[in-house]
C-alpha cells in the first residue's frame, strides 16, 4: 500500500479548508464544476512547449529534484516542474484535478490507486513505449509489475504505470529474544511462528508479547489472507470474506490475540514503536521497508545487533505478501507525453534507482538495481529481496481501498471479542456486496 505512517498531518491540510461553512459550499460548487467539465467544455489547452508538470508525494518529491541534475544535462530542452503533494491530501487533489481537467503530465501514483484512475480512463498505456525503450519487463519483480497491468477489452491487459519503488510487509524480529526462547532462525510457517511466539511469551515471566499487529493497520491481516487466496469472488464483484481462504487467515490472526501473543493495541496507543521494540514489548513486528532506516536511526546502539528481518511466514512455508509501492504514470490528456516518458525512463534506469535508494531508502523494483552493495550486502534488504519474489497484487478495483479499511474494522471487532468471526465475516460480505453493486450492474450492462 502506498501510504506510510501519516506524516505530520498539519502539512496535509489544504489551505482552502478554511471553515465549516466553506466545506459545505464546496460540495455544491464541486458538483457544478463537475457538471461543467463533463459537459465537455475546455479539455486540455496546455502549451506543448511549457515545462513538464510532475506531481510527487511527500519525501519522494523532495528527493527527486536532487536526481534531476543528470536528467537536465542529458535533455536540456526539457524543463521539469516538481509539485509536492502531501500523502494525506494527494488522493483528493488528484481526483479533483481530474474533474477540473487540471492533471499534470506525469505523477507518482500509489499502486493501489491505479485501478481508480484506470477506471476513469485517465492513464496513458505505456506498453509500446516500454518496449521501444528496451526496458526489459522481466527485470521487474513480477508481482509488483502486475499491480500496474490493468485488464483491457478482450481479456488482454495494458501497462498503465511503471513501478518506481516497492513496498511490502514482512517480519522484523528480535534475534536475541528468539534465541533465548530456543529458536535458531526465523520461522517459515505459521505453526513455527506460533511456537516461537509462545516460547517468547513464556520467557522472563511473560514480559514480552510475541508480535505486534497494530489494530489500525490492515496490511498484516491482508498479507496473511493473500497467502490463502482471494477475498473477492465473481470477477471481483462480490465479497468472499466468509469463504475458507479469508477465514483461515482471520482465524490465525485472531488466535494470536486470543492466546495473548499480541497486545490489543493500535499504533496510536503506542507512543513510540521503536522504543517498545528495543524494550522488548514484542519480538516480531510486521512492517515495511522504511523501517530498515528507522530501526537503524531510532533503536539504541546497544540493540543494533539484536534485530533482523525475514520473509513473512506462510501456512506451509515462506508465504506471499502485499505488493505495494508507487508507480510513475502519464496522464492521457498530457500534451508532453514524449518528454514525460523521457523522465520516466531516466528514473527507471538502475543507476538512478540506486541513487534514489541511497537518498530515500526506497527499494527499487528492478532486480538489476539490487546489484549495488548497499542492497546486495545488506541483510534486512535481502530479506525484502526474497519477499519481493513472492508478492501478490491486491484486487484491482477502485473500491479496494475502502474494502481494505472495512476489513480491518471487522477484524478489530473480532479481536476485541465484540463479534464472532462467522457473523462478522457475513456482515462484511453483505457490506462489500452493497459497495460492489455498481460493478455488478456495469458487468451485466456490458454483457
Amino acid at each position, binding site marked *: 500500500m502506498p501510504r506510510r505512517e501519516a506524516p505530520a498531518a498539519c502539512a496535509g491540510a489544504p489551505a482552502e479548508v478554511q471553515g*465549516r*461553512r466553506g*466545506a459545505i*459550499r464546496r*460540495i455544491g460548487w464541486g*458538483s457544478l464544476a463537475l457538471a461543467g467539465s463533463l459537459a465537455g467544455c475546455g479539455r486540455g489547452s496546455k502549451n506543448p512547449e511549457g515545462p513538464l508538470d510532475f506531481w510527487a508525494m511527500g519525501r519522494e518529491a523532495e528527493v527527486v529534484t536532487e536526481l534531476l541534475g543528470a536528467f537536465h544535462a542529458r535533455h536540456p530542452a526539457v524543463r521539469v516542474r516538481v509539485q509536492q503533494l502531501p500523502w494525506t491530501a494527494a488522493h483528493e487533489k488528484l481526483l479533483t484535478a481530474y474533474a477540473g481537467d487540471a492533471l499534470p503530465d506525469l505523477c507518482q501514483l500509489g499502486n493501489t490507486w491505479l485501478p481508480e484512475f484506470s477506471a*476513469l480512463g485517465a492513464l496513458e498505456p505505456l506498453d509500446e513505449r516500454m518496449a521501444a525503450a528496451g526496458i526489459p519487463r522481466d527485470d521487474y519483480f513480477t508481482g509488483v509489475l502486475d499491480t500496474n497491468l490493468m485488464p483491457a477489452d478482450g481479456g488482454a491487459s495494458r501497462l498503465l504505470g511503471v513501478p518506481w519503488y516497492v513496498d511490502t510487509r514482512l517480519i522484523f524480529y528480535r534475534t536475541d529474544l528468539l534465541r533465548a526462547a530456543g529458536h535458531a532462525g526465523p520461522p517459515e510457517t505459521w505453526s513455527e511462528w506460533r511456537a516461537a511466539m509462545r516460547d517468547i511469551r513464556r520467557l522472563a515471566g511473560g514480559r514480552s508479547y510475541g508480535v505486534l499487529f497494530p489494530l489500525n493497520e490492515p496490511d498484516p491481516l491482508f498479507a496473511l489472507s493473500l497467502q490463502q487466496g482471494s477475498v473477492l469472488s465473481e470477477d471481483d464483484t462480490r465479497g468472499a470474506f466468509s469463504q475458507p481462504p479469508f477465514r483461515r487467515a482471520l482465524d490465525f490472526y485472531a488466535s494470536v490475540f486470543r492466546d495473548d501473543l499480541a497486545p490489543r493495541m493500535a499504533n496510536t496507543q503506542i*507512543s513510540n514503536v521503536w522504543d517498545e521494540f528495543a524494550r522488548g514489548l514484542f519480538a516480531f513486528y510486521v512492517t515495511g521497508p522504511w523501517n530498515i532506516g528507522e530501526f537503524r536511526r531510532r533503536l539504541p546502539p546497544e540493540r543494533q545487533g539484536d534485530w533482523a528481518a525475514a520473509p513473512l511466514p506462510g501456512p506451509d512455508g515462506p508465504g506471499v505478501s502485499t505488493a505495494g509501492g508507487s508507480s510513475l504514470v502519464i496522464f492521457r490528456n498530457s500534451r508532453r507525453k514524449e518528454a514525460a516518458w523521457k523522465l520516466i525512463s531516466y528514473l527507471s534506469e538502475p543507476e538512478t534507482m540506486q541513487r534514489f535508494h541511497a537518498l530515500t531508502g526506497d527499494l527499487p523494483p528492478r532486480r538489476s538495481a539490487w546489484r549495488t552493495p548497499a542492497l546486495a550486502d545488506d541483510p534486512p534488504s535481502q530479506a525484502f529481496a526474497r519477499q519481493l519474489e513472492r508478492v501478490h497484487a491486491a484486487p484491482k478495483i477502485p473500491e479496494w481501498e*475502502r474494502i481494505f479499511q472495512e476489513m480491518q474494522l471487522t477484524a478489530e471487532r473480532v479481536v476485541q471479542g465484540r463479534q464472532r468471526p462467522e457473523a462478522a465475516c457475513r456482515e462484511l460480505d453483505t457490506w462489500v456486496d452493497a459497495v460492489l453493486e*455498481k460493478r455488478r450492474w456495469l458487468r451485466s450492462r456490458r454483457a
Partner: protein
Amino acid sequence: MTKHGAAAWILAGPALLVIAVFFALPVVAGLALSLTDFDIYALADLSTLRFVGLQNYAHLLQTPLFWQALGNTLYFVVVGVPVSIGLSLGAALLLDSRFARWQPFFRTSLFAPVVTTAVAVAVIWRYLLHARYGLVNQGLAAIGVAPVDWLGDPHWSMPAIIAFAAWKNFGYNMIILLAALQAVPRDLYEAARIDGAGAVRRFTDVTLPMLMPTFVLVGILTVSGYFQLFAEPYVMTQGGPLRSTFSMLYLMYEEGFRWWNLGNASAVAFLLFIVIFCASWVMLRFDRDAPGRR
C-alpha cells in the same frame, strides 16, 4: 403588471438573479445529486449515472458510521455551544464592567481568534496539546496532574476539539452580547438597586431577561455553526482516534472527496440540513414559549 411592479422587479432583479444562480441552483443541484449514485464510474462515463430515489438516505440511516458521526456532532454541539456561549458571556460581562480599563484593546484581542485562519491556529494548538512536549501538559505537570494524550486518547480528543472551537469562536458572540449588554437601560439597574437587589439578583433578574432575545439569536447562530464541525478535526485529528472526532461534515467530506460518492455525500448534506433545521426550530419554539414572552 403595474408600472410600480415592473420597477420593483427591475430593481430586485439583479439580487434575485444572484440568489438564484449562487444559492437556489446549487441547492437544487445538490438535492438532485443526492437522488443519484454519482460515483467514480459516473465521473468517467456519465451514462452510468443512475437515479436511485431515496436509496442513499435509506442506506445512510442503516450505516453505523452515520450514527456515530451524528453522535459525535451532537456531543460537540451539546457541550460546545454552552461552553462557548458561557465564555462569550463571561468575557462580555468583564468588558462591560465599570472597572474595565483599555476596553477597546481587550475587545480587539479577544475577538482576534475569530478572524484568524482555523488551519493556522489549529497547528499551534496541536503543539500546545502535544502529549509530550505540549505547553498544556507541562502546565498540568506543574500542578501535579499526569500528562493527558489530548489528541490521541479517544476520551480526550473531543474535549480538546471543543476547547479549541470554543476559544476560536467565543469572540464573535462576545461582541454581540456586549452590544446587547450596553443596550440594557441603566435605570433598570438603578431601580433594582433601590429595591434592594444585590449584584447577583441584578444579574439574574435584570441582565439575563434583557439578554434573552440576543441569546436566542446567538444560540441559533452557534448551534448551526457547530453542527458543521469540520476544520478542527480535519486538521487536528483527522477524525480519529477511533473516529471519536468524526463529524457529520467529515462523513460528507469522506464520502464525497475520499471515496467520490457524491450522491451519498449530498444525502449526508441534506440530512445535516434537516438536523440543523429541526434544532433551530426547537430553539425558536422554546424562545416563543418561554415565560414572560408574548
